């Protein structure tokens, strides 16, 4: 909304410079986003909040200026309420009938017939003001309706009377298949949502939004019908949405136009048209009610003080509200009866008045205090666990990523994942790139890997913790961990620089670190072929990890690189988390450690071997684990070298070599006999 300094001065005396006024308006809730000096005037661009349609006019802003600065508002005489009553009683001299199909859609419609209009350019003063606030001058009649829209906030529309059937004006919903070409030249197919103005033969305007092209005022126009009306905000909103056109008119109607000023605006327009276009008036027809209900609100001034945290005397509250145009009377010492003016449709309850008092009193004058907070300590375990996981993964060298949860269906399909549920679709996406809610983190992470490989990163290790979405019977979201690795990681060791090519084992190791951190027991990684493994905790599947196949890589535009991805449900995982540790007493007696090194045929499951040996080694074998693993020139093709570390111990005594030897021999024997291992 733009207003100028001089235009405001028509309604209120301003004694402070424009810049100072801008600051004061901002601090009163009319945020001045720019102030420009032009042609001897200042243009204020103000952001008007949606609750204050009354500020969408020069008069409304002037009223605020008066309240802030203490100056008197000069209300033009034609706006007085008495005048309004007189106006309507003089109405309905003329032959035109107004028919409103539903008074809810249009509580008030006025039509004024003005004859012998000379259409031409506007007087300079009108054109200059309109141009300063960014409104293009069309002709004197149209400019006058626009001028009053900006000055009073009352949208008006002028029709060429000779292009409409002058018997009757009908306000009704559009019929199916009905069409109108609006003044922007577009043909609009209408629906029953749209309220229209029509004559007996045709549609002539989309009510409150835009007039029709065929009845617009042009150079040849001689006689006009001037419309000033009040339309239902929701109806105009729906019409505007259906037509896809937002106009200065619809913007104001949607927010609420003061219906008590409709007739005055029409009269003022007629006066200006007579002045500028040499016209004569020949009729004024009104249908509907122009008098809004009287609203009165009781305000307890103690409530004002309680909400704001300041002590305000009733007199001070009354003074502020009166300056804003409220009619205030005392009900008792501290209770005020506040009459709400018709232009303040946003004020209906006590608390609305509290805000008005606070605004004009000045937020900056309200002191600061510190509330006594009674903590309600709830342990948000999930959040703490998520934090802990992020910390451990970054400790392992991965970077946290955040990817969009809205993705394209094609991208998802190209990954070739098997999903339990279809993705959730967005009804009103901005583009195909955001048409579904992602049922996986793998797509976003895969794309982030691709992006970074394109930036010539040698090694990419990223993870994300976010919701994935499933189109089940009810839409579901599941907190999920995703990890992606690609390329070779270089790091220093005591032997110099080492390059470690990423693989599924690296991902597995990272997840195992998370399991250890969270105290998850009984987890298993079960291979599904060479390039995929599923992850289980106590027989329940919580996720999987995989190497992307060629097709997926191609769809991500990744060349000559492997990408490894993991996705695991944290919602499922957290059910098994036992982050609270329980101490196991340390062994009282030292154990005996023995290693077994052997060569084993590829393809035999180490997991199975360990399980079997663990059983055979009882009761003394406390622990058995893979201590070394190697392949290379000293190992025959199709075999791998393994070293198992065995720890024997007892809680009752110190073991002797003699006791351990037979058990250890049994383990070695089992390896050679059952698995054809070659002990080295």
């Amino acid at each position, binding site marked *: 909304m733009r207003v100028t300094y001089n235009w405001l001065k028509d309604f209120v005396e301003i004694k402070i410079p424009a810049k100072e006024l801008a600051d004061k308006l901002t*601090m009163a*809730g009319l*945020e001045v986003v720019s102030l420009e000096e032009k042609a001897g005037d200042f243009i204020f661009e103000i952001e008007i909040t*949606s*609750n204050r349609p009354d500020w969408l006019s020069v008069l409304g802003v002037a009223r605020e200026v008066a309240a802030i600065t203490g100056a008197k508002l000069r209300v033009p005489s034609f706006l007085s309420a008495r005048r309004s009553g007189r106006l309507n009683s003089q109405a309905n001299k003329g032959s035109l009938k107004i028919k409103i199909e539903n008074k809810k859609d249009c509580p008030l419609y006025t039509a004024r017939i003005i004859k012998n209009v000379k259409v031409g350019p506007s007087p300079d003063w009108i054109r200059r003001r309109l141009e300063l606030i960014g409104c293009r001058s069309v002709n004197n009649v149209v400019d006058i309706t626009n001028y009053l829209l900006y000055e009073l906030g009352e949208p008006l529309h002028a029709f060429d009377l000779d292009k409409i059937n002058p018997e009757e004006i009908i306000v009704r919903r559009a019929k199916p298949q009905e069409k109108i070409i609006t003044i922007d030249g577009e043909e609009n197919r209408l629906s029953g949502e749209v309220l229209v103005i029509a004559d007996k033969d045709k549609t002539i305007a989309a009510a409150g939004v835009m007039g029709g092209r065929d009845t617009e005022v042009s150079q040849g126009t001689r006689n006009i019908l001037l419309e000033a009306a009040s339309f239902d905000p*929701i109806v105009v*909103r729906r019409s505007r949405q259906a037509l896809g056109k937002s106009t200065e008119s619809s913007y104001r109607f*949607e927010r609420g136009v003061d219906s008590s000023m409709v007739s005055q605006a029409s009269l003022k327009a007629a006066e200006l048209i007579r002045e500028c276009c040499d016209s004569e008036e020949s009729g004024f027809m009104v249908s509907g009610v122009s008098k809004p209900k009287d609203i009165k609100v009781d305000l307890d001034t103690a409530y004002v003080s*309680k*909400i*704001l*945290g*300041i002590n305000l005397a009733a007199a001070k509250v009354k003074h502020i509200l009166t300056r804003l145009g409220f009619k205030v009377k005392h009900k008792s010492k501290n209770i005020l009866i506040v009459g709400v003016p018709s232009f303040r449709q946003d004020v209906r*309850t006590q*608390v609305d008045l*509290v805000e008005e008092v*606070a605004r004009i009193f000045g*937020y900056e004058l309200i*002191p*600061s205090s*510190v*509330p006594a*907070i*009674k*903590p*309600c300590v709830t342990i*948000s375990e999930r*959040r703490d666990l998520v*934090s802990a996981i992020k910390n451990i993964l*970054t*400790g392992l*060298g991965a*970077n*946290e*990523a*955040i*990817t*969009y*949860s809205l993705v394209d269906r094609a991208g998802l399909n190209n990954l070739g994942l098997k999903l339990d549920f279809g993705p*959730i*679709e*967005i009804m009103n996406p*901005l583009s195909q790139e955001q048409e579904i*809610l992602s049922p996986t983190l793998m797509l976003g992470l895969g794309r*982030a890997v691709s*992006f*970074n490989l394109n*930036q010539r*990163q040698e090694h990419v*290790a990223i993870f994300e913790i976010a*919701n994935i*979405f499933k189109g089940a019977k009810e*839409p579901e*979201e599941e907190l999920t961990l995703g990890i992606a690795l690609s390329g070779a990681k270089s*790091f*220093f060791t*005591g*032997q*110099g620089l080492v390059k470690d090519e990423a693989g599924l084992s690296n991902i597995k190791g990272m997840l195992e670190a998370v399991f250890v951190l969270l105290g998850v027991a009984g987890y298993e990684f079960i291979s599904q072929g060479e390039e995929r493994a599923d992850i289980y905790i106590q027989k329940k599947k919580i996720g999987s990890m995989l190497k992307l196949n060629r097709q997926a890589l191609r769809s991500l535009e990744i060349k000559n690189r492997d990408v490894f991805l993991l996705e695991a449900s944290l919602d499922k995982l957290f059910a098994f988390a036992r982050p609270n540790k329980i101490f196991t007493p340390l062994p009282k007696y030292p154990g005996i450690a023995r290693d077994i090194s052997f060569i084993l045929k590829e393809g035999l499951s180490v997991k199975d071997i360990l399980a079997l040996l663990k059983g055979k080694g009882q009761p003394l074998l406390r622990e058995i684990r893979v201590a070394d693993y190697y392949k290379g020139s*000293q190992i025959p093709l199709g075999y791998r070298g393994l070293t198992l570390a065995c720890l024997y111990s007892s809680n009752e005594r110190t073991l002797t070599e003699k006791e351990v030897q037979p058990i250890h021999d049994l383990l070695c024997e089992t390896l050679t006999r059952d698995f054809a291992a070659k002990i080295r």
Partner: protein
Amino acid sequence: MDINSIKTQIDSEAQGISSAGELEEFRTKYLGRKGILAQLTGTIPSLALEQRSSFGREVNALKDKLLFVIAEKQKTLLPGQKETTFSSFDAGMPGIAQELGHIHPLTRITDEICAIFSRMGFSVVSGPEIETEYNNFTGLNIPLEHPSREAFDTFYLKDYAQMLLRSHTSPVQVRAMKERKPPLAIVVPGRVYRPDAVDASHSFMFYQVEGFLVDKDIKFSDLKGLLEIFAKAVFGNDIKMRFRPHFFPFTEPSAEVDISCIICKGKGCSVCGRKGWLEILGSGMIHPNVFKHVGIDPKKYTGFAFGMGVERIAMLKYGINDIRLFFENDLRFLRQF
């Protein structure tokens, strides 16, 4: 050279090997692509048919022997490693440790904000990203057909009636106030969505932190005091603050909160649009209608609520000029935090 003399040669040469370099030389000499064994294998086709298999076996035995010798040598050499590059400590050379990854800047800022409020006694609560129209709008005193909804343009779900992606974290106010009884001191971090075309300052997905305090006798002055503590904790003690009247359907009175521009210290620069002030959050006293929706008696309780965009705070704090950087996941970006 016959195979037997090669064997003797191997044994004597192996004795003299004392470093990993020498071992590697030894390996290449015999097992390399043009090594002695390769040469021997190369002669096989020129042998008489009956000689071929026995000669082949001998070459294989030789290979096994070599592998064994090398493996043994490796074992003896490994513990020593005297000659490697890092044998003596050079303080100028890189240290040896696992390279650390980095937490995303939005997580950092979210955690920082939540931590400040946690220390003041607030609990951190979260809510779902898929919400009902009621929790996102109606329960927060936002009428469905009102222009105030324009500010909360929303993605709706296709096959689920009246379900949407929350356009702010405020629906968690409705949830938390229904589930718990006052006094309440809660902060809510989370992802939110609005159909905005993506550019340097807009994203259709972003993060907010929401907070609210409900008790008997909570006042507007408390809101001012608490948010001042917060802003100073995030941006430093030197900043100035101002509270401007604004409109939010779920608070009344409502205020937008500005801090003096941290770049130009209030003089006016391109970051603050020459205003000298930066808007950082929206706030206000919880509207009595919101209390009525959740079953809290507005005569008995009052409260305030506030909300802020995490990207906005992160951009100001870290000097980031493009919101898209947060979601591109460029490692060169992420590694800076």
